[in-house]
């Protein structure tokens, strides 16, 4: 390890520059840069197919990049220090199915045996609240329990850096909150987390900083609060009319309403980013009444990362 790399370990957990990965004609990662600080919970947010998993697997040393430079905890992959580096990582992969015919405790014990310094099976099962399932076969667990077990296998190594690839995808809200608690507890102990997700609520709740990824590139970077603030307005008003064609001619008029910062029309609906809902909504209703357009739906919510993604790409995260 060079002196520069040792200094790098002080504050930076992950640094990558110009990451590129192609699969045939498809470019999964197209020149991606990231710097993640120690102790940070960093989120890669983006739709399916954005290149999140490929990026994470390159950082984990499981996939070789076609170009770019990766530094993880001050070390680089393939320099003879891989095994020592792996001792310090905790990894949960998106697609792994653990062996169905092993029990929860046996699975953790197996993963535990790979590490020199590790938590006991009981410690880690307590952490993920699977103690009462310790004797159950993995195949009999619910989706949420399987995910918590996968996280337990990642945590058993006492990692400095935890990689979680869509840990809560497909889980019910309660299971999701249970996993969030586990992640929060890990962070309290000083751990660094790199998390991928396509749930903006999850990113807002857990992450210090978020990189929004689309088509293999970072298109926005900052804390969830900063990213939402970049919309220039804290609220979103969604409106639809009975006659789906009624809104299109009104785009200019909608944008001119008091407190409206942006207008987006799609599929007969208008989505307004709004600074002051109490001024914009009455003006909106008056405008529609004046033009004789019958309102069929009106909803307002606080602006989220989803709205940031929509503003940046014109697509929604989940159907992008």
């Amino acid at each position: 390890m060079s002196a520069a790399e040792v200094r790098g370990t002080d504050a930076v957990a992950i640094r990558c520059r110009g990451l590129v990965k192609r699969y045939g004609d498809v470019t999964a990662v197209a020149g991606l840069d990231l710097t993640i600080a120690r102790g940070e919970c960093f989120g890669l947010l983006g739709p399916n197919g954005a290149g999140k998993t490929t990026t994470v697997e390159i950082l984990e040393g499981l996939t070789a990049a076609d170009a770019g430079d990766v530094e993880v905890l001050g070390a680089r992959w393939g320099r003879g220090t891989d095994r020592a580096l792996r001792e310090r990582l905790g990894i949960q992969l998106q697609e792994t199915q653990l062996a169905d015919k092993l029990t929860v405790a046996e699975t953790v014990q197996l993963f535990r045996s790979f590490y020199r310094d590790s938590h006991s099976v009981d410690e880690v099962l307590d952490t993920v609240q699977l103690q009462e399932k310790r004797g159950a076969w993995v195949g009999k667990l619910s989706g949420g329990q399987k995910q918590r077990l996968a996280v337990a296998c990642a945590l058993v190594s006492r990692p400095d850096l935890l990689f979680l690839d869509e840990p809560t995808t497909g889980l019910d809200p309660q299971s999701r909150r249970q996993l969030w608690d586990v992640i929060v507890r890990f962070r309290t102990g000083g751990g660094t987390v790199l998390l991928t997700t396509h749930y903006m609520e999850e990113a807002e709740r857990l992450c210090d900083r978020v990189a929004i990824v689309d088509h293999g590139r970072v298109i926005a970077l900052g804390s969830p609060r900063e990213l939402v603030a970049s919309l220039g307005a804290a609220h979103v008003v969604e409106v639809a009319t009975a006659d789906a064609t009624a809104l299109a001619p009104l785009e200019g008029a909608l944008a001119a309403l008091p407190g409206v910062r942006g207008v987006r029309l799609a599929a007969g609906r208008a989505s307004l980013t709004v600074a002051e809902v109490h001024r914009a909504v009455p003006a909106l209703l008056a405008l529609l009444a004046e033009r004789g357009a019958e309102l069929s739906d009106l909803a307002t919510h606080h602006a989220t990362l989803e709205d940031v993604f929509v503003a940046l790409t014109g697509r929604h995260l989940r159907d992008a």
Partner: protein
Amino acid sequence: MRDHPLIQLTLSQLRGFYREPEAVFWVFGFPILLAFALGIAFRSRGAEALQVGVVAGAGDSAVVAMLGGSRHLAVQRLAPDEGQRRLASGRVALLVVPGDPVTLRYDSTRTESRLAVLEVADALQRAAGRRDPVAVQEQRVTERGSRYIDFLIPGLLGMNLMGSGMWGVGFAVVSARTKKLLKRFLATPMRRSHYLFSFMLSRLLFLVIEVATLVGFGWLVFDVGVRGSIATLVLLSVLGSLAFSGIGLLVASRAKTVEAVSGLMNLVMLPMWVLSGTFFSYARFPDAIQPVVRALPLTALNDALRGVMVDGAALGALAGPVAIVAGWGIASFVVGLKVFRWG
């Protein structure tokens, strides 16, 4: 010690196997059922009387009386067309047409028909007063080791070592690969050699049970013994099991789906089930393909197992087949490791 990755990996292989009832049946139950069924079907019996028909007509009673003296023949009088039908369908081995000369009608490609010719001719000549110039004495014995079941048990053992070695490794590797479990293991500091070696260890533990059940079954039910030393038998079994685990590793080294590896396994094993002398001697195949047949790992293993179980051969005498089995194992293992796909 219990926390050594090799031990934990081996334990997980063992658990994955014995918690799968189908796998346990195919490895332990099936060969025993097969041995039992074949042992019953081909059990050694006293030679049955040969069915012989005498065509009804002039002089038939005299012929029936002359043949009646032989205890190897079961004689019945038949109308000419009925006799012809029974001969054609194999219900009688031979048809005697009385007259001068007596005509023996039979299919010369059938072994029992040719036996019947000898018996019938002999019985007719003796009844007509032939005297034998040379005195002959018969002495009947039943040798252990010469029965079909004695041939079968070592063959089934070889086949079982092949099947469980290849499936045990191949199926587990490919299913771990499909489930991305191999990739997950790679994300830990686990040594790859530990993973592969754990298959060998778990195979060896099961091997003891496999060999003991099948050989024990043969011994208890059919009185099939081991003429050579048990140590040699165990050594050969270990060698065979490891060699076929190596071949299983090679077959599974790149397959991405369980379906693909199943097809490959059958492609590799099917020719050996037929050619390698498990159920019948491979000497029946033409000379031209004998070198190929003998070079197959299962042929060599079966030869070696029969050598020690039936002929009581010592290990030194089995150097040829042992070298073939070991060669296959080592070559497959080396190539399998080289081309192995982890991701």
